[in-house]
């Protein structure tokens, strides 16, 4: 994402300390992670201490303090997916990508994360890549799905 877009988001909230979370959410959605210098800019513009920006950014799970891969792979670990075999999906994704929960590979292809619950329980267990849901997944089908994302 261009610096221009980030600056645009920050400008919208200049001088509004109460909008800290709004600003960080927008930047996270656009940029997929929060670089330190961006958080410094947010702190300056919204007039909040940098420590408070760090507190929010490190507390909420939606924020990432490290760069993400080109593709975000999620396995839902909600209760229905769990009962319907999410653990096998996790094992297969971990085997195929060599990643553990929360990690990004060295060529920045995939970031792998587990999370619950995405509310599509009826089609669980499921794999979600870049927001696209692959419902009623089986470990055998995962390789073909991941192949589509280079």
């Amino acid at each position, binding site marked *: 994402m261009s610096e221009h877009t980030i600056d645009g988001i920050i400008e919208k909230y200049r001088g509004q300390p109460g*909008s800290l979370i709004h600003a*960080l959410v927008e930047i996270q959605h656009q940029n997929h992670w929060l670089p330190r210098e961006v958080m410094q800019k947010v702190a300056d513009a919204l007039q909040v201490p940098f420590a408070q920006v760090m507190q929010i950014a490190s507390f909420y799970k939606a924020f990432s303090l490290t760069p993400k891969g080109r593709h975000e792979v999620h396995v839902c670990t909600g209760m*229905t997916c769990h009962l319907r075999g999410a653990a096998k999906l996790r094992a297969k994704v971990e085997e195929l990508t060599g990643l553990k929960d929360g990690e990004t590979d060295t060529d920045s292809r995939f970031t792998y994360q587990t999370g*619950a619950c995405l509310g599509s329980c009826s*089609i669980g267990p499921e794999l979600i890549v870049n927001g696209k849901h692959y419902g009623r997944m089986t470990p055998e089908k995962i390789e073909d799905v991941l192949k589509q994302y280079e």
Partner: protein
Amino acid sequence: MPKLHTAAELEKYRAEILASRDPAKPCIAVCAGAACDGMDSAAVAAAFVAAAGKLGDKIEVRTTGCHGYCEKGPNVVVTPGDICYFEVQPADVPDILAATLKGEVVERLVYKDPNTGAKAVHMNEVPFYKHQTRLLIGDNPKIDPMNIDDYFAVGGYAGLVKALTTMTPDQVLDEVKKANLRGRGGGGFPAGSKWETTRNAPEKTKYVIVNGHEGESAAFMDRAMLTGNPHKVLEGLIIGAYAIGAHKGFMYTRHDMPLLEKHVRNALAQAKEYGLLGTDILGSGFDFECELHFDVGIFVSGESSALMRSIEGNAPEPRPKYIRTSVNGIWDKPSNLNNVETWANVPQIINKGAEWFTSIGSEKSKGTKLISLSGNVVNSGIVEVPMGTPLRTLVFDIGGGVRDGKTLKAIHFGGAMGGSIPADLIDAPLDFDGMSKLGAPIGAGGLLLMDEDTDMIEVARYLMDFLVNESCGKCVPCREGMQQMLQILTRLTEGEGKKGDLELLEDLIEVTGTASLCALGKTSGDPLKSMFRYFKPEYESRIAGGSEAK
């Protein structure tokens, strides 16, 4: 687009919408709920739009919120007649359009009973739907959530009109109190009393909040309601604000569902444009604004005081509630928070009256309840039944029983802070107090079936693991107590259980439950408690048998 200055203008506008619509004109409603969307219902909708466009103005196509029968998505409902088609693929579109034009039915896509093969064409004949009372979710197939006119067409905002033009705030409050509307978010606390506390709190500035956080695992009805019919929730909120005397409201919901965000943003903008939000709403002199806020990914932010910290822009840490948030909430102002489903009930209570509402449900729990039915069930989806309905109806008549011909072992309610009851309690009625006594409080309404293969110790470990990850870490009993319980449970699942483990767990449940600040820690031991009540032999034999019993 018109700004509606008075109630009369709104009713005139509604009459115009209805006059311009021909009820005999076929309409195809394609579900875009979370599960159908996951099965690529968008491709089905696109195929319908493309093909119907070539037919001129003969058929209308509408993309809607969740219809309910998620198991069999993508769902398509054709009106008039409410003909239900299941598991529709883009390739089925030409057949459905051709049949609809001729007034016929595509037999191969209708419901077939898995045992008898009997077909059901219309919604009121499909077993999943016919045992339900769909007062809240029933409008979903009739509404394009992006189009406020669709909500007007089903009688939307009539409750607001009635409240603002014919009732005083006190009368609205009285009606909700008489209706005995109880909070749908988990506690079952009477909404009317909560409203009254905020109304009577001394501070002049007051807030109202929609809690659409829905972090409970396997509960997905609130987002279906809010995504599929956002105006219904908003209408309830405005009516509540009028009764309470609040001029500012907040909708707090999930950040990770793009469709939900799009629909709610659009609904707020439309309501403003039509004059249903803003100053002097419908000429009543009442002013109200509503802001949208997002949870950014931690379960505890659904807790009321934590949620309010989050709206203020802080980390969502709960605070002790010696003073309730209804008296001292956002920025220390009185703040009334109710869950999505609670607000959605308000318009119909005002419209049809408390007497009508209390005629539905059980003695102490009135109205209907939305239930997310999932786990090892044949028909998963969103179900709405009157309070007091026996669980058997939910599990077997609607849910179709257990998947793969297995037997039912347990029914779990209320997610990670709920409880499990054994299959032989299946005739218990769905009721706030009754279910709490059994040790499986309804919570927000996530109902899970567990089949004979379910390892209850592993379920307890899984739920504890979830809570350990979601705790905010502020208070020690929650942070450390749950960690200890998780370690013991993990050992048990690995066949390394020791004598005395169960007693130690019982101690930890008690201390964590007593000393934690908020409900997350306080009720973290509830699933375990229910298991000790009903499934203790399984735990004992696992410890006795060590790894052999695995």
